[in-house]
């Protein structure tokens, strides 16, 4: 049993921390967020140089062969620094999906590009009426000879505006909610018939809705077996969920630190407000929530690489549900204890709070994952 990061991992963590304090403080982050791109292109290329983008990708394709625990370490720092770059979409989720299931030529073509920071990819897996259900795919993929014609809508594609291409789930057969019949296609952003509606997100990043009208893709665009793509999408999303949990843990600890400092410095009635027992005990609850959340993030990360899909998904759901609740408690307490200073745009506290909230709402909120964890308790009948 080992609960500490390895030497190399600690070195990487240290590098990231120095990078954030030097090149990504809160003011810079604010500028990146409102820039046309919505994040820092410079940071992205530095990530490439640091090997962050290659980290979890397989060695045969220019990757470093890292695992979900390496991603956990990186995402925790993304949380601490509220980093805006499309690491989760491009590297963790789409990178994972391609490494996992793409054809040899596609791996050859894309993975080294991702590692080099030259290609960014977004997952277009959700539709408005499906809420968080990846099997709800109304978007159609009609065969026409060797190629497929894709038509439909995809909603809230994270980091979509800057993506060079998308991984789009579309239905080759079966009914809208069926697990079978879903195929996954690589669609370039300039594909004919694809329209992108871009917008900022509540946590300062960018996302987009996609409209596909008879978008033609060839068979080489197919990822995984036709009609059998759902399991590989779910695996990539579980990996993304584990990464989001790590990001949340980074934010939770940052919020606790900020709140603790505020309690020690803010004076009311002539004393530091940290001397009031009601606030002390709330702060203790926040510390407990942080420790328990870290444990859950570890569970999710360690199981994310498992090939037992049920066990992997169960761990991801438990962690996402638990951290969704813990993040809510910490975020709301942190804002409350900051009083007026907690609800203004000026301090980073409210930005941490908003990001934690949006993490909960991404890839299934606490209730959604509670339900899917809870369903695993049903006696097999």
């Amino acid at each position, binding site marked *: 049993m080992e609960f500490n990061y390895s030497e190399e991992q600690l070195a990487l963590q240290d590098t990231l921390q120095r990078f954030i304090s030097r090149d990504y403080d809160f003011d810079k982050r604010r500028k990146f967020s409102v820039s046309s791109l919505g994040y820092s292109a410079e940071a992205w290329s530095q990530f490439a140089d640091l090997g962050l983008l290659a980290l979890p990708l397989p060695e045969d394709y220019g990757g470093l062969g890292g695992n979900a625990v390496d991603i956990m370490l990186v995402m925790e720092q993304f949380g601490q620094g509220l980093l805006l770059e499309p690491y989760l979409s491009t590297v963790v989720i789409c990178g994972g999906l391609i490494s996992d299931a793409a054809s040899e030529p596609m791996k050859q073509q894309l993975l080294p590009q991702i590692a080099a920071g030259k290609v960014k990819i977004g997952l277009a897996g959700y539709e408005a009426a499906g809420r968080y259900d990846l099997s709800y795919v109304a978007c159609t993929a009609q065969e026409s000879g060797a190629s497929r014609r894709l038509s439909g809508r995809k909603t809230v594609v994270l980091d979509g505006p800057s993506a060079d291409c998308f991984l789009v789930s579309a239905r080759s057969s079966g009914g809208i909610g069926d697990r079978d019949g879903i195929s996954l296609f690589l669609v370039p952003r300039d594909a004919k018939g694809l329209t992108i509606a871009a917008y900022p997100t509540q946590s300062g990043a960018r996302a987009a809705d996609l409209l596909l009208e008879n978008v033609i893709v060839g068979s080489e665009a197919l990822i995984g077996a036709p009609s059998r793509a759902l399991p590989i999408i779910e695996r990539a999303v579980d990996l993304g969920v584990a990464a989001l949990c790590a990001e949340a843990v980074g934010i939770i600890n940052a919020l606790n630190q900020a709140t603790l400092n505020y309690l020690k410095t803010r004076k009311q009635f002539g004393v530091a407000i940290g001397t009031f027992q009601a606030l002390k005990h709330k702060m203790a609850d926040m510390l407990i929530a942080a420790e328990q959340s870290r444990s859950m993030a570890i569970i999710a990360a360690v199981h994310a690489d498992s090939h037992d899909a049920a066990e992997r998904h169960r761990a991801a759901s438990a962690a996402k549900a638990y951290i969704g609740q813990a993040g809510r408690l910490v975020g709301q307490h942190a804002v409350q204890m900051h009083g*007026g200073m907690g609800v203004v745009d000026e301090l980073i506290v409210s930005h941490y709070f908003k990001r934690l909230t949006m993490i909960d709402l991404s890839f299934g909120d606490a209730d959604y994952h*509670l339900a899917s964890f809870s369903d695993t308790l049903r006696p097999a009948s």
Partner: protein
Amino acid sequence: MDLKYSPEEETFRAEVRAFFDAELPTDIRTKLQLERRISKDDMVRWQKILFRKGWGAVNWPKSFGGTGWDIVQQHIFEEERADACAPPQNPFSLKMLAPVMQTFGNAAQQEYFLPRILSGEDWWCQGYSEPGSGSDLASLRTSAVRQGDHYIVNGQKTWNTMGQYADWIFCLVRTSSEGRQQQGISFLLIDMKSPGITVRPIIMLDGEHEINDIFFDNVQVPVQNLIGEENKGWTYAKFLLTHERSGNAGIGACKRALKKLKEIAAEQKSNGRPLIEDSRFRDRIALVEMELMALEITNLRVLSATAKEQRALGPEVSVLKIKGSEIIQQLAELKMHALGHDALPYVREALDLAWVGDPLLSAHYRSYAPPISGQYFNQRKTTIYAGSTEIQKNIISQMILGL
């Protein structure tokens, strides 16, 4: 024991409802229905309409041009207002300043200011909190030094709501540093056009500009703008705070938000079915609705007891403030969760009714979705301002429980 309103009260409710149906401008109603931004102009327009009807001030005695309504009538009016999607009135002039002026102001002040408030001519804002003085209000430091017929005011006020629109501000200022903090405070009325006043916007976490810092740099204030006696301001301030807390249960607003939540949960889909058919989400709504059912009765119990005993509202309003703010927050949070992924987009322009929207964005995003996440963020303030929940619990444990 009987929960039914009297026939007179029901008639009154019908009259109020009919008035809202007939007189509330459609554009304003639509803005509130869709929870879009409303302007000062909207609120002033509405105030003038109410004024013409003789309903300019529902909480004032007739002698000052108010309706003279009892506390239950005021409750009914507020419930109907929220349900009709009519805008709230400026609380700073009508609910906070006016009672102070009517009780402690002099005839000249009453005759000049009150009619202008009633008619919507003057817009007032509040100068209470300071950077160093939030919950600990009495520690305020903005100073007013008497020079001949004027006070010279220097200092900073913060958390000032809608001051960017204000013609006047009422301020707590320090006129003496002798004795206990509370003893050196005075209550001043200041013309916002006075030289030396700077208003600096504070952007809230939802990206909106509703509050300000206000800086006073040697601002001259005529002595006749002093309310009551110099250094007696703390008495008036406490008087005001109780009035501010009254009606803070916000039953009307909560009911309106609950209705909206149910509409959204019926619209939004989960795996193709209406979200409200998901028992887990429905249970969340049910839990808040039960809390609100209880608070509505608790609120009426407090109001009717107060009315019966002919007294001002006491510390029990802290119970209403705590619960009311929790409920409105929970409703905002559930509305956000009902959206799922659709809570992520942040399209500022969409908060203006004028915005037609990108046809690509899913349809509901052009109806109820845009304001919702921002509301959740913004509503966190309700357990912080007007006496934070922690302060309210201190009040309960001290003044009700005797701890």
